[in-house]
């Protein structure tokens, strides 16, 4: 079976096909949330495996691709800049152009921006420091695969952990993002100076999503919140 869009994955699930979605988790040098994502995806019944930054992959082999957080290439030069120019990103681009679901979390979000798959850029936090803390988010869009399990306006608690999470784009770009309903989620108390309190955005086709907070760190009550589940439970 070959599936070309997230709708297909979704249909299969609702129709009760016995099917495991296949998730590719990209590992760059310095990625450090890779094992977390594998664990999260498997927890919800998906078949998850690593994709190596030096290798291109067959886009038909996966139903979704995740770019996990971390410090790829040590965040040197600019966050995400060196990773965005690795061979695996050619496949990720192709994958996303087919409308298949891509999620970039934290450093993954930065890489997606650097590679142009998402608009804008993530800059140093306003206070110039790394910030790890729990934040309340409001889900603004759920017409994309990754937040389909949430309702619009829903408030969820997720942890952030980044030094460069201040979303920036030129005025007309930001306006476009807003008008196109590409804002995925916003912070209730903006921790880093992000434009429009943006915590996450989608591309215009809504299959590519970037998010600064870490849903994989909020899967069970013992982690402090279980409201990050929705990002993976649809897989």
């Amino acid at each position, binding site marked *: 079976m070959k599936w070309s869009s997230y709708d297909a994955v979704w249909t299969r699930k609702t129709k009760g096909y016995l099917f495991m979605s296949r998730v590719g988790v990209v590992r760059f040098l310095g990625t450090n949330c890779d094992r977390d994502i594998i664990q999260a995806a498997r927890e919800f019944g998906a078949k998850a495996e690593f994709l190596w930054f030096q290798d291109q992959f067959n886009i038909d082999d996966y139903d979704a691709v995740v770019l996990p957080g971390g410090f790829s290439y040590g965040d040197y030069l600019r966050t995400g800049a060196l990773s965005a120019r690795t061979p695996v990103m050619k496949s990720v681009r192709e994958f996303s152009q087919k409308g298949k679901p891509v999620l970039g979390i934290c450093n993954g979000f930065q890489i997606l921006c650097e590679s142009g798959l998402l608009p804008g850029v993530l*800059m140093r*936090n306003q206070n110039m420091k790394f910030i790890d803390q729990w934040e309340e988010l409001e889900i603004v869009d759920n017409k994309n695969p990754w937040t389909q399990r949430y309702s619009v306006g829903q408030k969820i608690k997720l942890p952030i952990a980044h030094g460069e999470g201040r979303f920036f784009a030129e005025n007309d770009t930001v306006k476009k993002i807003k008008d196109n309903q590409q804002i995925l989620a916003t912070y209730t108390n903006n921790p880093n100076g992000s434009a429009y309190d943006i915590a996450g955005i989608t591309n215009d086709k809504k299959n590519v999503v970037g998010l600064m907070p870490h849903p994989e760190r909020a899967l069970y009550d013992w982690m402090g919140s279980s409201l990050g589940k929705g990002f993976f439970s649809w897989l």
Partner: protein
Amino acid sequence: MKIGVKVLPRKEVLDTQGRTVQSSLSENGFSVSNCTIGKYIVLDVNAKNFEEAKTQVTKMAEFVLYNPLIENYEVEQL
């Protein structure tokens, strides 16, 4: 040949680092009306003359060394 690439934040972009340094300088009695902080990259390339080196380095800059959304760059010979 040693080439320098100066990468500076564009004017319309908020330069948090520059702002922080400026306010720290002002607090300590230095008078600075503006402070902008960017990167300086020194590259050793194999080239016969500056022109040739500049062509090479410009390619690198366009490829990865700067992000046009937020930065400008200049190439100079060292």
